[in-house]
């Protein structure tokens, strides 16, 4: 659900992220709300699959938006807001994973996220999606991060590097290894 922006004499929905960020720097709450609406879905999707829990994902994403709002004055409008926001979110997810290590076993499949997702168009899609979610939870966190950014969030390697602080070559290697591992795990899942 998107809360309509208050009338302000401009059409926020038609503005670029940079234009909205400029307004947000000036204290325009509606402009920041529009940025939240544009990017919240992707942030929650990434964090849910990275952390394996919708609850943890919501906390991490909320934290990321809070930090983005606090730091909006330092955002370079010539850069990509999405990449900048993802950089913050990635760090929040990394931090959340540190805390998670002290907990017990995780619930990998997030029923709410699955329930809220679109109805699979093909028979077997539910099983396929669940299998990938389980497989993602089993691979190295760095590989999972790179795979999600590249193939789910569709960032370029340049954007990924800017957001993660990891070099492009290393990211390519992580994505490749993630794909290899995921294929193996999916195959094992099919034959289980």
């Amino acid at each position: 659900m998107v809360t309509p922006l208050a009338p302000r004499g401009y059409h926020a929905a038609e503005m670029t992220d940079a234009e909205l960020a400029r307004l947000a720097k000036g204290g325009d709450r509606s402009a920041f709300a529009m940025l939240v609406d544009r990017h919240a879905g992707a942030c929650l999707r990434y964090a849910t699959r990275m952390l394996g829990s919708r609850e943890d994902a919501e906390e991490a994403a909320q934290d990321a938006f809070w930090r983005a709002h606090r730091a909006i004055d330092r955002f370079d409008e010539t850069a990509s807001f999405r990449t900048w926001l993802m950089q913050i979110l990635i760090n929040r997810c990394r931090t959340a994973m540190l805390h998670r290590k002290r907990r017990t076993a995780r619930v990998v499949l997030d029923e709410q996220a699955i329930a809220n997702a679109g109805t699979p168009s093909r028979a077997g899609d539910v099983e396929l999606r669940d299998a990938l979610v389980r497989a993602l939870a089993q691979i190295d966190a760095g590989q999972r991060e790179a795979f999600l950014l590249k193939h789910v969030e569709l960032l370029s390697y340049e954007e990924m590097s800017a957001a993660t602080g990891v070099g492009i070559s290393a990211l390519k290697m992580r994505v490749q290894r993630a794909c290899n591992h995921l294929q193996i795990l999916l195959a094992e899942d099919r034959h289980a």
Partner: protein
Amino acid sequence: MRDDGHLPPGLERATELLRDESHVRPEWRAAVMASLDRDDPASSIRPVRRWSMRPTAAIAAGVLCAIAGGALTFAATRWSQPARATLAAVDTGRISRVRFTLVAAKAARVSIVGDFNQWNPTTLPMRRSTDGQTWEIEVPLASGRYTYAFFVDGRVARDSAAAESPNDGFGTPSSVILVRGGGT
């Protein structure tokens, strides 16, 4: 190496299904917007924050910040002389000025990276002290838990003697500091 963005068919279909997941709960969105004016992102979804649950929080009321680690050993093999780091914090209300100190005489450039600067090695360069042995910086930090590391001549080095030095799963060496603001 396959880095052209194409996936094998089975993996591609499953990944497409993940891309379809972008639901945002209205309650969560409202909580996000409501949190923006707060001094910390304490969630109305999850009101008890992790640091508020720590038993040592009780002794921090109104006074000082925690000191994470006393004397820290920096064991990078690049330097023949082990580098040592210390940090101290002074509470100035809600924001604490945390002083990070690293002994790394042979380092040419040192900065600190962490959650507080998005791990950007350019924003918080450390200054070499007059003795030429030590690098220092003071960082204003709100109460909370931060993961950090030293960025020494292009290499990330954690506090190897820290009480908590968890592996983040990414191979990045890091340390943890708990900052306890006095509040009022």
